[in-house]
């Protein structure tokens, strides 16, 4: 999880990476998600695609971690 927090902080400096409403509260948008996905694919060795770019998959660090686990 710490690695994911680090990626979030690098892509969206200053946001509360522990927020449960990253998308709903506008802390990250779809273009941040695109940048985030590229980093996740490299750092966690998973394959993601356009089907995975759903707001509910990126609304919190836990949701992103679940997506990573499902993609392994």
């Amino acid at each position, binding site marked *: 999880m710490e690695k994911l927090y680090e990626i979030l902080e690098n892509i969206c400096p200053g946001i509360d990476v522990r927020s449960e409403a990253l998308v709903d509260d506008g802390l990250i948008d*779809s*273009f941040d998600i*695109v*940048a985030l996905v590229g980093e996740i694919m*490299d750092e966690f060795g998973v*394959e993601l*695609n*356009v089907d995975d770019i*759903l707001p509910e998959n990126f609304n919190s660090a836990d949701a992103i971690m679940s997506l990573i686990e499902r993609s392994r």
Partner: protein
Amino acid sequence: MRRVTDYAEVKALTSMALRRRAVTNCIPLGDELAREVSLGSLYLDEWEGGALLAKRRGGFDVISLFVFDPTTQIPRLGSDGVCEIVFDPKGKSRADLLEGLLLACGFEPSLRRMRLTSERAADSEAPEHILTFDSAHLTAVSAFLEENFDPRLGCIPSLRVLSEELAAGCFHGISDGAGIASLIHVRGSEINHLATRRDCRGKGYAKALVQFASRNRTGKKMQVWCAEDNAAAKNTYLSCGFISDGYSSLVLQYRVGVTDETEEKSTLIHI
């Protein structure tokens, strides 16, 4: 450009684009792309430095760009096309890069839009004469949209989608003896269309419809993309509590063989 017949190809392309940190104008949704493939209306073009997906409409393509290498040039389209670049202030450099690439391959700027949002519920009662249009109004609503919006810039839904959204209660309006006087189309938390017939403008119909939509919204906030040069629409939304959230968009068009720059530009929302 070739037709995409297998959605797996789109998934592979987008996966590769995401891995390579492609610069893109907007993020297409997977279910939307899958539907386009099943309808046979999704096309793909690839070049050394990127790829584009084109959703084919009647007479033009709606373009999604994925640029891996901005030093390469986007190939010229074989048909008319529309490409919208959405960005917030921190994405201005990305937008400038894409705009430069599109201008270099023959696109021209057509429309600038700003996103307005509101978290405020309307404080006045909605007029009782606002109707919810249903499937029985398909022909009238379709004709009203075609009369009031440019098909290339106004995102007019197909008859199939229009029929589904009428059944879902997404269209509301005010009618008089001459037909639909004013109409609002709300999809989820977004106002997609708002227009008032020319002879009915200035009567407050549009504001009443926005207030109606605001009172009946299901989410925390509402949003709308408003043409920057449409003062009437902008004032209507501002008077209903909408404010700019910093997001903007630039719509560019490519027209095969057309160079007449005096052609009248259309606006997205007419009030």
